[in-house]
């Protein structure tokens, strides 16, 4: 029986935070806040394409 594998672009992610972070100037404020909001919105892009495939 096959086990779940990890993939290059993990589930739930289109553009990983670490990739985005490299494009940003130095974050002087709350880095975790920026990261959380980035990931939350990025997940909507992921949902869009997989829901297109599965539901529509």
């Amino acid at each position: 029986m096959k086990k779940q594998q990890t993939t290059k672009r993990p589930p739930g992610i289109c553009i990983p935070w670490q990739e985005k972070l490299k494009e940003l100037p130095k974050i002087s404020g709350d880095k975790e806040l920026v990261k959380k909001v980035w990931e939350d919105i990025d997940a909507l892009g992921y949902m869009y394409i997989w829901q297109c495939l599965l539901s529509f």
Partner: protein
Amino acid sequence: MAKDMEKLYQERLKRYVTAMRNEKPDMIPIRPFVAEFTAKYAGYTCQEVTHDYEKAFTAARKCAADFDWDAVVSNMVYVWTGLTEAIGLKYYGVPGIGIPPTTGFQYIEPPEEKAFMKPDEYDQLIEDPTGFLFNVWLPRVSPDVSAMGEPTSFRNNLSFLKGGMAMLTYFNAFGKQNELLRTESGTVSAISGILKAPFDIIADKLRGYLGLVTDVYERPDKVLAACEALMPHLTHIAIGGADPDKNVPIGHWMHRGCVPFFSKDHFNKFYWPTLKPIIEEIWAHGHQVLFYAEGSWDAHLASFAELPDRSIVYHVDQGDIFKVHKALGEKFCISGGIPNWLLATGTPAEVRDYCKKVIDGVAGDGGYIMDASAIVQDDAKVENIKAMTEFTREYGAY
């Protein structure tokens, strides 16, 4: 009044959940998956409920209010073609556009040579499924979306903008719809979230059925690797849409991975090894999965019996419900089994007789939910749906 409705909702929820856990509730729950039937009952055309989801929601709520049902899908005419047209998806026959407004929406599979994924593209899919869907698949299924390397366009940009906003609008509307079902008629929203098997989705939306038939012989290792690459994503989407209260199951729509579309060996090599771990992981998170076994999956019941007790609810379409009950009834709740042809062409007396046969055969110890075999479309007679409902209430008390 509102308090009474909440009491009714809680009674129905308890009844539905108890049966799904393969236990004996106070009476057999009724959970019909009614799609275009709701339009017929509410006085809408197929075009109206497919293209205007507010009308579909209204029709679903009207049925829920008028029939004594414990749970319904809040919109079983799930594909909102307003959304699919905004994105530009070309694989639908849309009621009122190309097909008659009185015909339900259709999925149109392209010929094998025009499959949305080419046979030499498995490695791209395996390497990066999400990237493949955005960069290769979406431009092929939507003429509005520019392929990688092509100039972008107004239509391309609008497809993503309108598609994204429409999808969020639609999904957010389900919250209100579920609340209205609860407060207006005390009806439970029957499922939450979506799952399709990796092997099925490759046939449905990527290689097409005929393409996949070729691939299981000519490039079996690629097929298996692609199924494995899809597994974590399909698991993620399923769990992400699941009921946070862990009451109602994730809907798993089973299409063409079974005999006779594929051989039992193919099922054992591709379909099952890449679906079973998904179900186990979902169950480990505390969610049941509804196996909506469209067609007949009777050749594979022994495989399904490998799953943990109560991890699934098994819905019977054209399978032999008595054989299913014998094979799976001690482990899982069973639903369905009332033939759609009977609901469309039979008499109320014949429907009542058939319901009695099914209840006598499979519902004695609980763990059964009354439903038609397949999704109920507008060919079902209203009097037959009433007969199924009323007989189950009269005869289905424990």
